[in-house]
């Protein structure tokens, strides 16, 4: 593999890790208020379809992103109402949301294709142009640095900015401190006068919205703007695992998602003469996920642990 290949591999890994980054960030935001939402896959699927259709009908990349966010947030709101207000079991609700979301997106995609009477749903040229890698004159042409830093599609930059903003929000702002307190000990937060229910809803929906953008990525970039069923294809599940890998830290999520991106890209860059079957490469992210989960359960420090109340609903008057 020559030097140019390595550069191309790194760039491809970063792009490929971006949808996982969104999923991971969304789940971190959710878990920080003590809600384990296993519906990432479903919220991404719903975001993917909504974003796709918005792009299809309006030709605007920005609107597509906003609609994907809104759809993801709306899907998360279902989860929020069930778990925050009605105290439903978080695991079951999340799983159901995944099944529901994937099914809904597939159904709607199929329905849209039939109604519009087209062979395949494809985003118009105008919007696919906006999704391409941004070419910054001058900067993008610098050797090595250009392709490594300034050669990505807008999603990548958006993902990294989101991660940095979230890290700032959780660690440097008062509101972030309050939100973290809710996830750690809602009773303590409540007694300290923090509006627990309100902030749980805000964070759960925000998290869902971020997942939704990740979903839009899968259809717009990975599938190049052509609608297919099951477009998220397990990325949501990897995101849930990556939250643990990143130890609930948005900044670490950036690196974690790029490592997983690299694993997904490996098969295109390792010379076929080595002779590893392609199926091994497809398995890699999942094998690593399993190893990560085992390692995380062995490592047991309080500092990098899951928010203490995660998975447990909070009811103020519980005796």
């Amino acid at each position, binding site marked *: 593999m020559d030097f140019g290949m390595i550069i191309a591999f790194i760039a491809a890994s970063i792009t490929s890790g971006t949808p996982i980054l969104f999923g991971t960030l969304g789940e971190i935001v959710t878990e920080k208020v003590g809600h384990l939402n296993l519906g990432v896959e479903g919220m991404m699927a719903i975001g993917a379809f909504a974003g796709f259709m918005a792009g299809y009908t309006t030709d605007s990349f920005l609107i597509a992103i906003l609609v994907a966010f809104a759809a993801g947030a709306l899907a998360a709101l279902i989860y929020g109402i069930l778990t925050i207000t009605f105290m439903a079991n978080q695991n079951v609700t999340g799983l159901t949301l995944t099944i529901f979301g994937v099914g809904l997106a597939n159904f709607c995609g199929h329905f849209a294709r039939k109604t519009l009477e087209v062979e395949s749903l494809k985003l118009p040229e105008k919007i696919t142009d906006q999704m391409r890698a941004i070419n910054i004159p001058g900067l993008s042409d610098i050797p090595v640095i250009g392709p490594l830093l300034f050669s990505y599609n807008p999603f990548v930059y958006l993902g990294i900015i989101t991660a940095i903003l979230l890290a700032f929000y959780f660690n*440097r*702002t*008062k509101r972030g*401190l*309050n939100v*973290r*307190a809710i996830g*750690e*000990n809602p*009773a*303590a*937060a*409540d*007694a*300290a*006068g*923090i509006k627990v229910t309100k902030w749980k809803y805000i964070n759960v929906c925000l998290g869902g919205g971020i997942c939704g953008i990740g979903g839009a990525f899968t259809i717009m970039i990975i599938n190049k703007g052509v609608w297919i069923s099951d477009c998220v294809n397990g990325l949501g599940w990897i995101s849930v695992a990556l939250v643990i890998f990143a130890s609930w830290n948005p900044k670490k999520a950036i690196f974690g998602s790029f490592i997983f991106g690299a694993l997904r890209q490996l098969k295109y860059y390792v010379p076929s003469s080595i002779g590893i079957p392609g199926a091994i490469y497809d398995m890699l992210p999942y094998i690593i996920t399993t190893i990560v989960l085992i390692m995380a359960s062995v490592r*047991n420090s*309080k*500092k990098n*642990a899951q928010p*203490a109340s995660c998975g447990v609903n909070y009811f*103020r*008057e519980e*005796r």
Partner: protein
Amino acid sequence: MEKGKEPVYAIECKGITKTFGSVVANDHIDLNVKQGEILALLGENGSGKTTLMNMLSGIYHPDEGSIFVKGEEALINSPTDATSFGIGMIHQHFKLVEVFTAAQNIVLGTKEKLESPKVMKEKIDAICNKFGLEVDSDKKVYDMSVSEKQTVEILKVLYRGARILILDEPTAVLTPQETEKLFAILRKMKEQGNAVIIITHKLNEVLEISDRVTILRKGQSIETVVTAECDVNSLTELMVGRAVSLEIDRPEVEKKEAILKCVDLTIDSSDGTRGIEDVSFEIRTGEILGIAGVAGSGQKELCEGIAGLLKVKQGAILYNKENIVGKTPLEIISLGISMSFVPEDRLGMGLVASMGMTDNMLLKSYKKGKGPFIRRKPAKKLASELIKKLSIVTPGIETPVRLMSGGNVQKVLLGREIESSPNVLITAYPVRGLDINSSYMIYNLLNEQKKKNVAVIYVGEDLDVLLELCDNIMVLCHGKITGIVNAKKATKEELGILMTGGSTKGVTKVE
């Protein structure tokens, strides 16, 4: 009375009523506190103390009645409202975020913007100096001792400018020395014109710290008395509703034989930290050995180690000269060693909360049955016997035990263990959270076992009880034995010193 002459109370409750479903927790309660006064709230379990205080702090909302702060009616709908009226509550179970520092916990939820750690520290230090508190504001809560955590809780409410402080059983988990320190702080608050309400079970503390006492019984406010005019007996009578003997028996058993001996026992707790280290002691039949220590000093590890639930790292446990280290819990039970551990949440160990009494009895006896099917009849009979013998209050023997009150659940647990007629009975915190009546019943049960030549290990919190009930008391501190003393000769202060790992000089040791 004319309006102007009426004393203005810091806080006054009139006719407060609160029901949970069909249970009336508070029934038209009246209560008042002046500025610069310490009021003790006294009552048995389930008399409604905590419910009442939770309404003052905005956790619950009263169904009826009104609360007045400084003479004006106050509507307290949330903890934020309570704070704005200057009411601060220190809960029995601390409401702290474990992974935050002291300073982060203190400023949590306040309105001002997030200050730099330095400015926060200065602000906190200023309050500390005013009331004589000590805290390391950068320390994480999970690294703190119970007493430090409590200090953070107190600082939290003071930081919010509270003038009315409510403390729910603040001394339950403190050593006598720490309690003294807390009382000094409370007196200082009182001097500065704050109103303090303190909830406690311990009568001698009520007499020591409070100016007046309000007594609750079965959700009603029975009377408010001036502390100086009371003694332990009169307060108990008001609380229980009849005269109660406060003596705990300590029967003497003649024939004592060594039955269980621990030698250089080292056990790690389940999270990998050292639980107990080099612990050696001996217990004889017909003897109650008390184990004292600040919560988390290794009591749990010791009990679980003997019962075979935790792996013994080093040392030996000799039961009738046979080493039982490495045996399974089942084998240990069949040898006649029985453990009943009442954890902080009371239901965590020993009983299955959603099962009825019969099924819980079966847990311990089903192995004895032959064939694949269980026989419910003997278990049912045992359950009804226990109900009669221990006067357990339950709607029925099939009612899930979680629906029973704490005291009754504990009786079920202890009763089942005693029924298996063990030779060594380990009980940890059997009276945790129980009121006087139920506690004395448990003490009597233990004494009965002692008379039957059972060796009893009693892990307890209340030092007064340990001193009265036990024959010897072993004190643990950070997993090590700091002393084994004769309960007849030792004093509370000596135990307190041992509990904090202080010098053992001058303490009456057991030969």
